[in-house]
């Protein structure tokens, strides 16, 4: 019994350590390709599990995945700050599966930058 517990503990530590050294990306988003998009909000959902923007930039319309509403509210980014028609800049990573989606790391609205992660 004691040796089973010791083995499980040791393999857990080893596994975590190997993941920590191997980890580069960020799930389904390509962290190697940082996008900075400035555009106009066409639609917004301030909804769980995470908010989204439909952001029109010259030549393309993006779906921008934001943070959970509770976090955005907490960090001083209420729904009212993200009304349609507002110009914003988002910095984030493109989705590997949906070429029109990106996940925002931070968003700048009128000189106020909010970290979303």
């Amino acid at each position, binding site marked *: *019994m004691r040796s089973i517990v010791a083995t499980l503990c040791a393999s857990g530590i080893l596994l975590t350590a190997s993941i920590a050294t191997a980890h580069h990306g960020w*799930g*389904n988003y390509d962290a190697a390709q940082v996008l900075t998009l400035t555009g106009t909000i066409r639609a917004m*959902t*301030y*909804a*769980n*599990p995470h908010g*989204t923007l439909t952001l029109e930039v010259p030549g393309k319309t993006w*779906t921008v995945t934001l943070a*959970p*509403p*509770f976090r955005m*509210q907490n960090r001083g980014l209420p729904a009212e700050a993200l009304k349609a028609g507002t110009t914003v800049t988002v910095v984030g990573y493109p989705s590997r599966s949906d070429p029109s989606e990106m996940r925002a790391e931070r968003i700048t609205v009128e000189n106020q930058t909010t970290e979303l992660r």
Partner: protein
Amino acid sequence: MEHGGGPHWALALEQSALAQALRESLFLYPLANVLHVLAVATLLGSIAVFDLRVLGLGRGVAVDALARLALPIAASALCVAVPTGIAMFVAEAPAYVRNPVFLTKIGLIAVAAVNIAVFHSGPLREIKHFAKEPPRLARAGAAASLGLWLAAVAAGRLIAYY
């Protein structure tokens, strides 16, 4: 909310008042999420202790007494896990219906439920006689239960990554 289609019933669920409240309220969705995690932790913990006992660990613990403690705890936890899970499901029903890991999780839970029914209709009735050596059928059920619930919880956590 994800874009893209889905079956009619899933789209209808997503338009329900409950789903809208969950998406729009700042605290409802996180609350459901926290309760779901606590319930799942309690469920898996109590089930694992019982299954491991049936499989032969901790022979000093009376298996029928353990069943009277662990199984009601598991059942109560399930009663919290299911409604909180449904709440999070309806908030984005079409996206979940498209998610292969979510479907895997539901499949695993369905098989685990059948396993529970079989265990209750058979081996559990003879639990008083498990003391020395639980019958082979009981041990098979316990092993299946442990594997199914571990896999279901793992799949549940992985939904967000697919």
